């Protein structure tokens, strides 16, 4: 199936190539019967990821209230469980200064190099567990394990969780189910239900139903803030209620997109796994998204860019390539009272596939062109100048031999700037080392990416 458009959580994803994963086909030696295996999806979601990364090098902050702030506008983007009752998501620092002091909440400015590095470590561990993997954002991934012979999924999930915790210090929640939407529901419940110890399998009907009855419908992946009240109006309050609805009926009152979500809740796999890296593109890797709800705050856009960076970097590594530059864009689209498109491109000194580095550069690019809050509808990042992994030796700081190409590029940029108004297309500063720090006074050290900033151990 090509060109399917799917919406969930209010966001729209364009699956350019939805691979029909039929799992492993086993041929019966006698009668040549092909048996398609059922798919089993796993969602791994890191708990309070940025905070957990900070705690890795600050075990003294375990069980204490900690928050991580976005780079530029100092909004809380990650909060430890101990901080959650006092600091809502997106809370601006300056408004909460007294509470932060009263409750002794430790705060950090986001350290994307570090988070990207840890994210990459976790992904490499996950790659040992599953043949198919889709990195969804910096702290979340989908696995598909239907082709593995696993007797006890819960046991398998516990082993995975414990492995990640021991090796990286990051606690994760694991949800296992026959569809992505159910696996996401399992992870939601794993986070809330302490007795699950972070791992839940919805492979069995009994446990699944038990939990679905307790999961509010607004916490189902694909139910946005607009849909939930409408469902409440029909008496649909729990995920279980929603799973019992007729998908045709739901399609009539909302859209085919919600119908797919309902089918997924019923155990019918509609989405598959986005593993387009199996057909590698030679020139570009993109990660983009159209937002269900428009993004109006810089910290939200920053988070989205961080997610895309992790996604794209992972695809890059799976394709055994390195990128030479990153571009970002955000647009309000045409159907907006105030139209705006911002774009920026940052080249790298050395080709890389490092999540942390790419994320930091992408956010740097965003910071350079973000001036005002607009209602952004769509954003994304693109990695270009792709070279094979073994070409790591190539230095990119040498002048490009193809002057004609560069001239052409400048011409196009000028045209775009003219059409959309000045400053929409920027060739952001080239070859910046680490001089961009702006408001990141409270960033933790680059523990894993800078020899001068290694964590200290006292002898």
């Amino acid at each position, binding site marked *: 199936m090509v060109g399917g458009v799917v919406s969930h959580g209010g966001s729209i994803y364009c699956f350019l190539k939805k691979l029909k994963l039929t799992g492993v086909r086993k041929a019966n030696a006698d009668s040549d019967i092909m048996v398609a295996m059922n798919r089993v999806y796993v969602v791994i979601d890191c708990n309070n990821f940025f905070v957990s990364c900070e705690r890795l090098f600050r*075990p*003294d902050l375990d069980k204490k209230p900690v928050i991580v702030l976005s780079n530029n506008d100092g909004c809380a983007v990650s909060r430890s469980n101990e901080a959650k009752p006092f600091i809502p998501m997106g809370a601006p620092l300056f408004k909460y200064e007294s509470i932060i002091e009263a409750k002794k909440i430790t705060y950090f400015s986001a350290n994307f190099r570090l988070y990207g590095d840890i994210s990459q*470590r*976790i992904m*490499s*561990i996950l790659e040992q567990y599953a043949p198919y993997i889709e990195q969804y954002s910096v702290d979340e991934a989908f696995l598909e394990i239907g082709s593995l012979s696993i007797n006890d999924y819960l046991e398998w999930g516990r082993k995975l969780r414990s492995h990640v915790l*021991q*090796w*990286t*210090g990051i606690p994760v929640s694991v949800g296992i189910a026959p569809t992505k939407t159910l696996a996401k529901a399992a992870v939601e419940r794993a986070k809330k239900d302490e007795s699950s110890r972070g791992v839940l399998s919805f492979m069995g009907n009994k446990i699944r139903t038990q939990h679905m009855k307790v999961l509010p419908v607004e916490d189902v992946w694909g139910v946005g803030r607009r849909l939930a009240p409408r469902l409440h109006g029909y008496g649909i309050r729990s995920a279980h209620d929603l799973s019992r609805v007729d998908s045709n009926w739901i399609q009539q009152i909302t859209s085919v997109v919600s119908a797919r979500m309902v089918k997924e809740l019923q155990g019918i796999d509609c989405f598959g796994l986005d593993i387009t890296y199996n057909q590698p593109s030679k020139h570009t890797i993109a990660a983009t998204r159209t937002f269900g709800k428009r993004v109006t705050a810089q910290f939200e856009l920053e988070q989205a860019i961080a997610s895309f960076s992790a996604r794209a970097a992972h695809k890059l590594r799976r394709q*055994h390539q390195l990128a030479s530059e990153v571009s970002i864009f955000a647009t309000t689209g045409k159907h907006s009272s105030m139209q705006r498109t911002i774009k920026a491109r940052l080249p790298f000194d050395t080709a890389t*596939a490092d999540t942390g580095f790419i994320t930091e550069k992408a956010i740097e690019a965003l910071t350079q062109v973000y001036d005002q809050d607009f209602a952004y509808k769509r954003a994304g990042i693109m990695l270009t100048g792709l070279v*094979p*992994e*073994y070409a*790591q030796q190539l230095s990119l700081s040498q002048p490009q031999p193809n002057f004609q190409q560069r001239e052409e590029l400048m011409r196009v940029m000028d045209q775009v700037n003219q059409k959309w108004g000045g400053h929409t297309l920027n060739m952001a500063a080239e070859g910046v080392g680490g001089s961009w720090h702006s408001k990141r006074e409270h960033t933790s050290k680059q*523990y*894993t990416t800078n*020899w001068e900033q*290694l*964590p*200290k*151990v*006292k*002898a």
Partner: protein
Amino acid sequence: MKKYPPLVLQPISAGFPNPAQDSDDVPLDLNELVIKHPAATFYMRVEGSSMEGANIYSGDIVVVDKALEPTNNDIVVAFIDGEFTLKRFRREADRGYLLPENPDYSPIEITADSDFQVWGVVTYIIHKTRG
């Protein structure tokens, strides 16, 4: 990060097998020697002299592997009393100790009440001799 070997091919001779054909033509990589579990390996900078008896000096870098379970006599990074500490791990019967390697420092006993955690096991020490 895995590196691809250079695309150097031995010429195929129809007669004798070339014994050199099977050997790696890849230059030695210190990362491969020192890092067994890349996802679980971190570097730390040593400050202080309590481990000099084990030839670990202030300013050295230790390679710390979180994937390993600490066993008796391992040099470990522990988190105790609010900081990372480098010590030799000793387990005797039901007691645990974190031992310094310097007569000027005293051992730390680990009890059930200790606010203690082994963060990782040291596998290599990098000591710079010049510069």
